[in-house]
């Protein structure tokens, strides 16, 4: 059976059960409890149960609620842009590069702007890798320049020129005030201005990155949380081959 119109599932099909928790900037009182329920009601939930409410001090309070929603969505009708390239294995990737491209693929990687988080970058790049897979540094056919954290976009561009990079990998974790979007857009615009954009594959990654973000910021691909080095490597090699065949 395929279900098109789906609702959240609690313990019966399409019961629409939702759990919700939030804080209010007011002390706990009978009125604040009603306020919490009213917020859930106005969010469109029905059958609201306020199961827990607690004062948090300094005029803050915390609420846990359950409710049901009547909203349903047609899963089949949803279109999501995704990086859809088949997954290759470590050996295939290296062999393909050696045979078809006949030279090592140069990758410049960095966390740009003020972002100091290198966890994602390390997961994909560093030899240690992630999820049991080696990072790109371990691939004999990749030459990786890891510029580290908090790199100004200008330095990324210099490194691309100096090392004749074909791929730029940028990690962005901090999203406060949309800094990730601003940083990414700035880099792609700068590359455009420097006339480097065409010859590069631009890839971004991070907990709040997806294909949509990549498109909006002028990147070729965006990888979200849980991405493994193999997924990135597979994409790179297949994109390079695709571009080569187009020439």
């Amino acid at each position, binding site marked *: 059976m395929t279900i098109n119109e789906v609702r959240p599932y609690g313990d019966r099909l399409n019961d629409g059960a939702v759990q919700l*928790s*939030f*804080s209010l900037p007011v002390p706990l009182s009978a009125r604040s409890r009603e306020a919490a329920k009213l917020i859930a009601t106005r969010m469109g939930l029905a059958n609201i149960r306020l199961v827990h409410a*607690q004062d*948090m*001090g*300094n*005029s*803050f309070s*915390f609420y846990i609620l359950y409710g049901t929603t009547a909203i349903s969505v047609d899963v089949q009708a949803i279109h999501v842009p995704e990086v859809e390239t088949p997954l290759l294995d470590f050996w295939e990737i290296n062999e393909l590069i050696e045979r078809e491209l006949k030279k090592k693929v140069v990758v410049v990687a960095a966390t740009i702007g*003020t*972002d*100091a988080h*290198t*966890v994602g970058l*390390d997961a994909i790049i*560093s030899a*240690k890798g992630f999820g049991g897979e080696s990072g790109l540094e371990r691939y004999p056919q990749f030459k990786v320049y890891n510029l*580290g*954290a*908090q790199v100004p976009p200008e330095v990324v561009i210099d490194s691309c020129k100096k090392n004749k990079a074909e791929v730029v990998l940028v990690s962005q974790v*901090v*999203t*406060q*005030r949309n*800094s990730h979007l601003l940083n990414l857009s700035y880099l792609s615009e700068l590359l455009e201005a420097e006339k480097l954009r065409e010859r590069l594959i631009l890839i971004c990654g991070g*907990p709040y990155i997806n294909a949509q973000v990549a498109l909006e910021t002028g990147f070729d691909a965006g990888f979200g*949380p*849980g991405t493994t080095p193999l997924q990135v490597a597979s994409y790179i090699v297949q994109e390079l081959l695709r571009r080569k065949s187009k020439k």
Partner: protein
Amino acid sequence: MKLNISHDQVNTCRQIAEEIALDIQKDITPLSTISVERAILRLLGIEGEEDKIPYVNILVEHLREQKSLEEGALYWIANACLQTGLALQEVAQKVVSGSLNLVHLPRSSFSEIKNKAEGLVTDSLTRLFKKNQVRKAFKQSFPPSPSPLLYVIVASGNIYDDIAQAKAAAEQGADCVAVIRSTAQSLLDYVPEGITTEGFGGTFATQANYGLMRQGLDEVALKVSRYIYQVNYCSGLCMAEIAALAILEGLDIMVNDALYGILFRDLNMYRTMVDQHFSRYLLGLFDIIITTGEDNLIKTVDAFKEYSIVLVSQFINEQLAKQAGMREDLISLGHAAELDPGIPDSFFWELVQAQLVRQIFPRSPVKFMPPTRYKTGNLFFAHVLDTLFNLLAVWTDQRIALLGMPTEALHTPYIQDRFLSLESALHLRNAASSLKQELRFRRDGKADQRAQELLVRTRETLNRVGEIGIWNALSKGVFSQIKREKRGGKGYNGVFKKGHYYLNPFLDDMVVARARRRAR
């Protein structure tokens, strides 16, 4: 609940680390940095900014441009006071406005300048010791703090929101509140001024923000009848300067690691070593606790295989802090529960490691850091991990427990995230406090074996660092495979060799003792 480890082995590690620290000390004693000089000026009370540039930066640049910094900022300032008869702040203002050149003034004799400098420093220290006594008296008016101290972080970017959240946290049971700094503040070669309401991933460390938070925490302390420790971060290009601000505003704990900036922020190693020394020296004078950042060393490597690097760094951090005159009860060494929770017995191994650190450094108010690496968007499982971490902290009698957040991998904590974490930690502090006395490890079982192996490996690595020296060890990737060049990294151009007439009476025991007497 003691592990069976060899005291000789521990003592040997400590001796090797002491030699490493002595070698470092020998190399950095002839050096000073622009941020050390700025710290001195700040302690003397020079404040203000012009076009967003702090006065202290303008003064130090003024001397550097004229290639006259090797005598130290204080030499020139003391001379200017003597020659012009002006007070310090007036001298600073005149230099900033361009109407006074410190180098062009006639020169008093060195002994006159030295006397003047010592007088200025004595006055400043006397004032600061007096202020420090008021803080200590305030702290002592509360009952002794519980253990472990529950440490939470606020990071809204806006100091007013930070204060509201910090007060709520204190009411929820937090003992220590740290304000995470705006991302990359550690890379700024100046300390921003004023009250700030915008930041990225955190709130700027400024003297004004420190003062506001201090006031907020003291208010809530009176409300909850518990002293609330104010925490901030020294690491970066302004280690010494930020230490000075912490002293001026009465902070309690400063994160201050000798290696962190070098390894994880690519700061120059000489710059960092000189800065950490003066920074720690100052904090030690005023009984401010430092905490170190060994948690970072096992975030990017296999934490089970490489755990001994935590101990290596702790031994070195401890000895460097001692070289800076700090007492052991002020040196809070850091460690973390960062093992892959999926490996068999991960909880058991964390227990052994946490106990080992506690046992090797019994007088250190060690700071235990929560899991971060294996947290995902599944905040419910993250809360499970944090609860187990809280159990570890109580069971192994850690002094400071930095609480993990269910939304660690997602965003700066929401107010309810902090609340839920505190609820869990308070529960375990209440529910599991006797475990440490009543349970024992099986003698020579898996726990003892693991502890002994870790110590052997720690000693081997310390030996290697001792043989090649810290500078080479940092360039060869001994620490978590990160390699740093001796002259590379940020801030190297701010390091200079002290000249013949270099003056820094803050380091003079006699001057310090005189100020202490006067402050009584």
